[in-house]
């Protein structure tokens, strides 16, 4: 049987070669010769034309001079020499040796000096020591942290809250935890620096809309909607966010939250709210801008605030719905020292016990706002209920340097007479939309009528004598 199979195969084979058309054989022959040629030819790499000889490399290495690590800073630059505060930064503050009334620290509810808060912190220190010696994942989670988180989520009426050990890092870590490359974020122009850093870290598409301008935002959202219609598959995986602040630190005004919520549902975007300045200030119970406008807290996807203003502690928190609240600053960094968490819990207790303090604070803010109207040469930037106002020059001299110097001279005039103010500081080259130079006036609940009178008259005197 094998023979019978073999013979036809043999025949078939010889038949194949003989019956193949000539061009076929020639083509295959050429192909084989070409392959042999390619195998033995020199490879031509594009890189070769740029290959430097070793001597050239050595020469380049010898010649190369780097810039100095940092450029020189002029000796009399204002930021170089910080004002030194001797003692605690409370209502009466000793700055550069002069005793003044403090109109510069963000101590809105006056809790920096509160005895109850200090006592609780001391009790915690005696139990836990100072540091936590580890991140949250590795034995750095204390029962105090868990208690603070549950208290905050109960207070804000959200599902969950987590705390960060540094206020700046709170929103800067929360934004990249949600928004990744390819997502779209609409953010207000007046957003603070930590939000800008969070946006940069997230690698998403950033679109700025004019400050508090809902029409501009709506226009952008409509454009985005048209884009989405063109490419529905991509639109399904792209997430869209709006990032706003409750009370803007740079312009001291409030965002129009009800309109934002309407847009959220119409255009299917998520809202991130940064409430560092409004937590503990706005709202009937101090819950911030959502309570101020009567907006349901579940409409906001993420609220982030730092505990360094109203709560007079250190750190920040994020609250919202459960999934993925944690950012890099939470996972890879040591947790908040337990005594600071205990202080924040006690401050929260004080806020819950006595909701009248918020109304008192807002009254004082309105009072200061009215009193500062009509200061010669300075205009107020902000809304009446904002505790941290800006005073800008009515007429700028044209150069930022000289404006800053002028404002600094006002600050020094006031400090000499016992009122501590400060210049609002920004990183000029890094800010996206640099605010104009201004003075920061902070109102706290501890300021009495006389304090406010004194401060206002001081500022007005300074303005009239120094700003011609």
């Amino acid at each position, binding site marked *: 049987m094998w023979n019978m199979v073999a013979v036809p195969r043999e025949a078939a084979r010889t038949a194949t070669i003989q019956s193949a058309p000539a061009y076929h054989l020639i083509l295959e022959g050429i192909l084989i010769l070409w392959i042999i040629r390619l195998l033995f030819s020199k490879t031509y790499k594009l890189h070769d034309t740029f290959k*430097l000889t070793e001597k*050239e*490399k050595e020469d380049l*290495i010898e010649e190369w*001079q*780097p810039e100095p*690590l940092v450029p*020189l800073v002029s000796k009399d630059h204002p*930021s*170089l020499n*910080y004002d030194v*505060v*001797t*003692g*605690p*930064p*409370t209502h009466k*503050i000793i*700055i550069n040796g002069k005793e003044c009334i403090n109109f*510069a*620290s963000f*101590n809105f509810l006056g809790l*920096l*000096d509160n005895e109850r808060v*200090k006592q609780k*912190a*001391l009790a915690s*220190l005696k*139990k*836990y*020591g*100072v*540091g*936590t*010696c*580890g991140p949250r994942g*590795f*034995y750095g989670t204390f*029962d105090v942290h868990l208690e603070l988180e549950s208290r905050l989520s109960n207070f804000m009426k959200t599902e969950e809250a987590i705390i960060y050990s540094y*206020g*700046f*890092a709170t929103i800067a870590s929360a934004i990249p935890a949600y928004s990744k490359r390819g997502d779209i974020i609409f953010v207000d122009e007046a957003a603070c*620096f*930590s939000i800008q850093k969070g946006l940069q*870290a997230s690698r998403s598409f950033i679109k700025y809309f004019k400050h508090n301008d809902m029409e501009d935002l709506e226009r952008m959202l409509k454009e985005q909607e048209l884009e989405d219609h063109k490419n529905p598959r991509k639109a399904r*995986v792209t997430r869209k966010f709006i990032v706003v602040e409750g009370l803007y630190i740079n312009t001291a005004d409030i965002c129009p939250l009800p309109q934002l919520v309407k847009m959220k549902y119409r255009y299917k975007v998520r809202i991130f709210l940064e409430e560092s300045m409004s937590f503990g200030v706005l709202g009937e119970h101090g819950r911030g801008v959502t309570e101020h406008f009567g907006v349901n807290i579940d409409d906001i996807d993420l609220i982030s605030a730092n505990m*360094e*203003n109203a709560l*007079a*502690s*250190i750190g920040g928190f994020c609250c919202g719905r*459960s*999934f993925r609240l944690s950012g890099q*600053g939470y996972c*890879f*960094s*040591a947790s908040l*020292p337990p005594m600071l968490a205990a202080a924040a819990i006690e401050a929260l207790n004080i806020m819950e016990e006595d909701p009248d303090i918020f109304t008192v604070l807002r009254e004082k803010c309105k009072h200061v706002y009215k009193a500062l109207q009509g200061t010669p040469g300075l205009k107020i930037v902000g809304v009446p209920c904002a505790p941290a106002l800006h005073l800008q020059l009515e007429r700028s001299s044209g150069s930022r340097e000289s404006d800053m110097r002028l404002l600094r001279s006002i600050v020094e005039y006031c400090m000499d007479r016992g009122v501590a103010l400060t210049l609002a500081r*920004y*990183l000029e080259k890094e800010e996206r939309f640099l605010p104009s130079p201004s003075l920061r006036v902070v109102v706290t609940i501890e300021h009495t009528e006389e304090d406010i009178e004194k401060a206002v008259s001081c500022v007005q005197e300074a303005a009239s004598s120094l700003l011609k």
Partner: protein
Amino acid sequence: MTESSANKLLNGDACHRTSNGKRSSKNGFVKNHCVFQQPQKYRRPREKNQNVTRNSSLYKKPFSESFEETPLLVAVLTYMGYGILTVFGYLRDFLRYWSIEKCNVAQEKEEQKDFENFYTRNLYMRIRDNWNRPICSVPGAKMDLVERASHDYNWTFEDTGRVVKDVINMGSYNYLGFAENTGACADAAIEVTKKYGLGVGSTRCEMGNLDIHEELEQLVTRFLGVESSLAFGMGFATNSMNIPALTGKGCLILSDELNHASLVLGARLSGSPIRVFKHNNMISLEKLLRDAIAHGQPRTHRPWKKILIVVEGIYSMEGSIVRLPEIIALKKRYKAYLYLDEAHSIGALGPNGKGVVDYFGLDPKDVDIMMGTFTKSFGAAGGYIGGKKELIDYLRRHSHSALYATSMSPPVIQQIITSMKIIMGEDGTTLGADRLRQLSENTTYFRRRLCEMGFIIYGNDDSPVVPLMLYMPAKIGAFGREMLKRNIGTVVVGFPATPIIESRARFCLSAAHTREMLDTALDAANEVGDLLQLKYSRREQPRPSLGWMSEENLFD
């Protein structure tokens, strides 16, 4: 520049192989110009990714690190383990999708396809009880854990109300034992809290610069031996906010493979191109430097404005110590700048506790930017940067933290001041010197005993961070739980913090650990190692008294 192997043995160097026994002669390197040369063929089996310590003259004492290679069978079984878990993961996802099984976590449809979420749902959730364990006491040598129970396979936890007392703490970064609630540090912190309060309410450049901040910075300057320094409230933020202030477009960052997330984030935010060199590999770094200077910026070939090398003192996942003398030699030769992150090494290394620079006996002025944190050895929180006066003046003006972030809290500062003074011996006692000595004795003893037992331990012999290799995913959870049953609290780490097959358990030694505590921990580790078959090491065990020296003699 080449030395024969015999000379190296005489010099007392530990010799290690380069990558995988290949002849590394085809990199396009020219031998006579490089500072570090290609190694000779010196075969030492089963060690991977080692650099030959060529310039032994730069090292004043032996530098011995080891990263034993994963045994082949273990690697295969580990991949199989992950494969089985993945299959089960898909099965469960299928069941959840068709609502046969209840899904316990709210998630959106498109996120289900994400690998990160798949991993979290199906692998991480199973062993989640090993992390985020809450404690209710000082994180000292012994701690009290809050007991948690889960009734739905780790999706949610609840407190049972009981406390597990006196668990030996091998997980907290408490190298010098300053995590304590009694003693000089705590008393001083109490006084400062009463005087200054807790918060500050303003930034450093506005109204938040207290006199106590200035005192801290002068002390840190003296401690490090630099010209000036600046302190910040968070260690993570120190890196992520200051690297962008130092480099920008037109500068190059050369970063180690295993750098911490904060360094990577800082480098990314700066906008400079980043090139990664192999972990602690000086040949890889030198090649990058030469290519960078010779070819300039990509595409335009303009020269780089500056080159910044970013390394850490001790790498906390590997336990390795940076090869600082070689890096400084490279830096001087190629005129680059060096950023050294001493988060884990400050206070823990060196005869005076002053970090890696002290450990190698080098001059702190050679390191351009010395960064570190106060969280680990000082029992507080925060970070610092030290360097020349121009650098610090520039950072005062341009650092994001100094202008926008609230200053450090006064009691935390006082804790740092007191503990630093104790380490320097300025408080009049020998407490600092005693603790430093105790830590290095503990390190040597613990590492030696673990090696003798047959575990694979990574890292440098002098590093107080001791990673013990586990490899298999099931053993990660098992090790953590078994050690907790024996009242030892350890940290286990898996993917994505480590490569997927190299999961490990990590012990952090402390000066507060007594010999008895270490012995208890070692016995427990021995038991668990036998139970879980973790003793993978296939080295010849050195006789205890000779230590590393005997391994060389075996090859003679």
